[in-house]
């Protein structure tokens, strides 16, 4: 059962994307992706030349984008992981077909989305799809908690949270995952969804509103 008492979650990531006023940036000055290191196009060219490490940098850069897209479509994070992997392998094999290397992210996103839609279609056509909802300790990384009770408690919370996110409508799930998995700005999300920034903001607000209602016990 879901525990009412929840452990405090204070990951570096959550701090990084939820800056309090003292560290909050005034403006998001960058539009689109904030890219550090080589540009995508450069990595694509190097990968085409056979440099696997270059493609791995693209994997590092866009895994969360892929996972977010796949999870948005499938609503199943295990399937999303599989779909993401499959999509990257397809992308690697088809790298020479990419006409505009600067648009690698958008190209990859389309591959992921297509693969995810395929997965959904196949899943619906199958007589049965079964996957395990494992015991709490097996669902998600337990981290380094020394306290097994707190650890199990956290796992239950994560399981509950993931179930609620998965239950969101796809258009809400999409913005939530982009925002909180990849830390995208409104502009980033808009670019990757084809929405306006205002629409992204509205969807995010409404999606969070739903989650707040569902997380009522966790937020006390």
């Amino acid at each position, binding site marked *: 059962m879901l525990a009412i008492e929840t452990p405090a979650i204070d990951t570096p990531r959550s701090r990084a994307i939820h800056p309090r006023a003292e560290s*909050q940036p005034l403006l998001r000055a960058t539009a689109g992706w904030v890219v550090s290191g080589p540009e995508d196009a450069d990595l694509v060219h190097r990968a085409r030349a056979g440099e696997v490490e270059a493609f791995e940098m693209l994997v590092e850069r866009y895994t969360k984008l892929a996972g977010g897209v796949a*999870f948005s479509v499938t609503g199943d994070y295990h399937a999303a992981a599989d779909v993401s992997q*499959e999509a990257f392998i397809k992308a690697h094999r088809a790298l020479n077909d990419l006409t505009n290397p600067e648009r690698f992210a958008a190209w990859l996103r389309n591959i992921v989305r297509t693969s995810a839609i395929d997965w959904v279609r196949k899943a619906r056509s199958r*007589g049965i799809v079964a996957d395990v909802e494992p015991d709490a300790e097996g669902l998600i990384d337990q981290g380094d908690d020394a306290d097994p009770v707190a650890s199990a408690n956290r796992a239950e919370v994560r399981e509950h949270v993931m179930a609620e996110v998965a239950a969101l409508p796809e258009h809400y799930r999409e913005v939530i995952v982009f925002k*909180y998995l990849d830390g995208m700005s409104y502009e980033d999300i808009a670019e990757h969804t084809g929405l306006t920034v205002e629409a992204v903001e509205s969807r995010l607000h409404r999606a969070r509103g739903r989650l707040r209602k569902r997380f009522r016990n966790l937020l006390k």
Partner: protein
Amino acid sequence: MGSREHDEPIPSTDRLIGRFADGECRTESERARAEARLAGSPDARAELTEVERVGELVTDALEASPIGDGLAAQIKQAVRESARLAKAAPEPAPAPVAVARPASAPAASPIASTGWSPRAPQLAAAIAACAVVAFGLWMIDRRTPVPEGTPETALADAIGRWPGVEASSTLALRRGDQSARDAGRGATLRVGDELRNDGRIGTFLELDDGSRVALGPGASVRLVASDRVEMLGDRGRLFCEIARRRPGQRSFTIKARSTEVAVLGTRFTVDLDPVFARVSVFEGKVRVASPFESDVLTPSEASRVDEVDGRCHRVALDAVREIGWVPGYESYRPEIEPSGGPSDLGVHDGPSAPTGRPAAPSGDGSGDMPVLPPKRKDG
């Protein structure tokens, strides 16, 4: 509710707090306005706290999930493997001719009789005119297509072994375009291998990740990847003892005809029949979903999905029936009669049909859990 929700405008204060929480204030004055609002309104502060807390919860859960931080490493490994296999793969050739046999050719071995065709390398020139026809027959005979992206190479990785410790166990192995042969005890199992249990009792395959998959008599599988097993044919039984998946590790998948079961770490059986699929859970928690509904199964529960109506039907778990054939679980099937040949236990007569054997005390579907042997710890 959805349209009404869309129609309602977002209150300006909520929008302001949301932007502040997201670091999305568009101007200095907007940020100052948000700070002033927060300073003067407990409700606004509570709103901010909740918005941030939701973000923390979601971020934490997403990052710890299979699409979180561990996924990139998993994908990189898969890409490397894919690239390596692509380099190692030979040029595409009209290989089907080599493994095809004319429809009139006698089944020279038990393997051939069930659709695994013996190689006929010397016949190519003589029966060139039959090649196209044979290829077509071979394609029909195979029934189970090779999944997209499946590595096909003679250099495929070893992913486990077949100890063959069960008495009189016999395992047929077909690798690449080679003809099927006796695997031999202790055989190394590789990606792409096709295996069939020709023995009269179940036999275990041991995978390197610690998982074990028992093939029922007559059951055939293909090892698609280190964590993917595909059942071949329309019937067969598997008992799966899947090692717990590490964070970020993709789920272990059993594919059987149109059925796919993805698991993280549990013990269960999949029983395929032309008209239904039944999943019985002995350990762990399994969600069974059809196109119309889903059902969560806990230990000692079973669900049958009807191929016709696509519905999940709860059925009593019959431990005797489901695992009595598995080596090490014979005590649940004391009246085993192995003399009927491999196909006897590979054919199922429906979940509610009598098994023809006296039920063991725990196998009456009452919900009592059979006591299972402990999992191996050396995986």
